[in-house]
């Protein structure tokens, strides 16, 4: 697969902080690439260097094997994490404004259909709900039919319903053969949308790979969780178990032997959970602190 975008040893230093501390990766054409990490991990800073919005302190970004030139702007679409649109404009006027800044654009109708904006087309952009606003911002990012799309925490602040809808939208965009780079601190989002993730913490890469493969690489197939107060006081903790946030956690390839072991020890199994380990568990294991803090 052809590499569309490469980051070579990116470093960004702000006074007193190395926000990004030597990050390298490559994004293949047509894939969805995720930067996963907690707030302040350097995800947005990394993304801004890729977008050409800020200049790296050192390191390079390559687009199709070359440093990005002016034409790069015509090829990319960006949805910023926090962005204001010009006041006193309707959704239609906003889309028309951005469309007229590019040489090549998607037809307005197609864009409106894709992002489900028909109902709010004549509404003032200040009167949109969170989900509507994100859909408009995505439409703005897609207005030039970009080859490469950057999404910075696209669903932060949305309610679960809007988030799910938005994921559906992003999957539709993906099916059109677009390459996506997104940041998120929701492991569920990364797991659902991304072909490949880069887990970053404090400006450094802590793991990379396909979400499922990454988890499988570090964990057995299941995790059994039991509230700590359901465990008999006098019994010693089972082998290989860990205590986290009031829960007893046991990782294993097979769940039934664990359940049998717990039952024998006299634990109350009513509140027991059996799950597949996820990126959240992985992040905790690799960094020693939780993704969402």
């Amino acid at each position, binding site marked *: 697969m052809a590499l569309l975008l490469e980051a070579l040893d990116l470093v960004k230093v702000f006074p007193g902080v190395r926000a990004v501390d030597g990050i390298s990766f490559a994004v293949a054409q047509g894939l969805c690439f995720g930067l996963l990490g907690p707030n302040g991990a350097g995800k947005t800073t990394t993304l801004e260097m890729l977008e050409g919005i800020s200049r790296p302190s050192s390191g390079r970004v390559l687009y199709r094997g070359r440093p990005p030139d002016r034409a790069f702007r015509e090829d990319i679409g960006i949805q910023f994490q*926090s962005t204001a*649109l*010009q006041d*006193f404009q309707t959704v239609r006027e906003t889309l028309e404004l951005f469309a007229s*800044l*590019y040489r090549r654009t998607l037809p307005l109708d197609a864009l409106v259909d894709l992002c489900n904006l028909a109902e709010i087309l004549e509404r003032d952009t200040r009167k949109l709900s969170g989900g509507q606003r994100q859909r408009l911002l995505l439409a703005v990012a897609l207005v030039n039919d970009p080859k490469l799309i950057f999404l910075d925490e696209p669903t932060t602040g949305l309610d679960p319903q809007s988030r799910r809808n938005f994921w559906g939208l992003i999957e539709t965009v993906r099916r059109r053969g677009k390459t996506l780079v997104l940041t998120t601190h929701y492991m569920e989002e990364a797991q659902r949308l991304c072909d490949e993730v880069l887990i970053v913490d404090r400006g450094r890469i802590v793991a990379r790979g396909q979400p499922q493969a990454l988890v499988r690489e570090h964990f057995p197939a299941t995790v059994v969780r039991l509230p700590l107060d359901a465990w008999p006081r006098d019994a010693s903790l089972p082998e290989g178990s860990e205590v986290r946030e009031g829960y007893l956690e046991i990782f294993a390839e097979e769940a039934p032997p664990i359940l049998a072991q717990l039952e024998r020890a006299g634990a109350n199994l009513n509140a027991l959970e059996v799950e597949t380990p996820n990126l959240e568990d992985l992040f905790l294991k690799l960094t020693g602190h939780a993704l969402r803090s």
Partner: protein
Amino acid sequence: MWHRIQAILRARNREFYRDRAGLGWNIFMPFLMVFGFAFIFANEPEDLLKVGVLTDPGGRAAATSPLLELRHIDFLPLTNPDAAMSKVDRHQIDLLLDLRGAPGYWVNLHSARGYLAERLLESAYQDREALPQRRTLSGQALRYVDWVLPGVLGMNIMFSSLWGVGWVIVRYRKNGVLRRLQATPLSAFEFLAAQVLSRLSVVLAASLVVYLGADLLLDFVMRGSYLALLLVYVAGALCFISLGLVVAARLRTEELADGVLNLLSWPMLLLSGVWFSMEGTNPLARLLSQVLPLTHLVEAARRVMVDGAGVIQVLPEIALLGGSALVLLTVAARLFRWD
């Protein structure tokens, strides 16, 4: 490039005219000011008589006069005979004492103060033979409103230009509109050009409305060339817009921008001769006023409207304001940051 500039221009113009509060402020404020001041200065209270003392260009007097020893008279040194006489003609000074050669004086037959000043002059000369030669003029008084209107229009252009680009761009930067635009093929030059054009058209349209409204209600004088007046105001607006762009090039908070803009505009408001003539004030203040663009804008506009100047006569001011605009615009484009 041009269609991108147009797109930004249209969006900015929509934002401007849909913002009713801002629009109202831009149009009605200058009216309120003109009316307020016309009312306050309807009977201009002045304690002193103003007597111009005309000498040669070096400021040397060939003669002296006992009138100069009187107290409570404001003696205004003048060196340009034509300008001095037009002051008498417009009642801006009550009497002009000509000391370039054998003493003479000019007085306006229609001026009540001129009459009193002349009686004082006569009584200052005990020797009637030595009385300076009398010459008369008969122009009508220049009303304060005629004198102040070109300045008020200029002041309104200054405020509207400075805040209209300065404040708006800083707000765009703070809330991320600029960052969003930076991510498109739009260049900084295109963005700034659109802001300049948008504000220039707004400033000129608002000034036209104020001008026509004042014409309807106040019947002020306009003796010169409309083209000259337009060119003066366009050059002035461009100069202030560019100054606003320099202020807005990097600042990130509206509060700071507001402070800097106030710091720039208030000295101009006070020292540029908008409300009162700088003649006879502290030399330092007069020197300072010469470096302020509003001074040149107001002087040129006044020369067109009150003195009937044409394009040629105000060309130096137009060139000065236009040149300053170019320099400031270049500086602004160099300094400009999206984030």
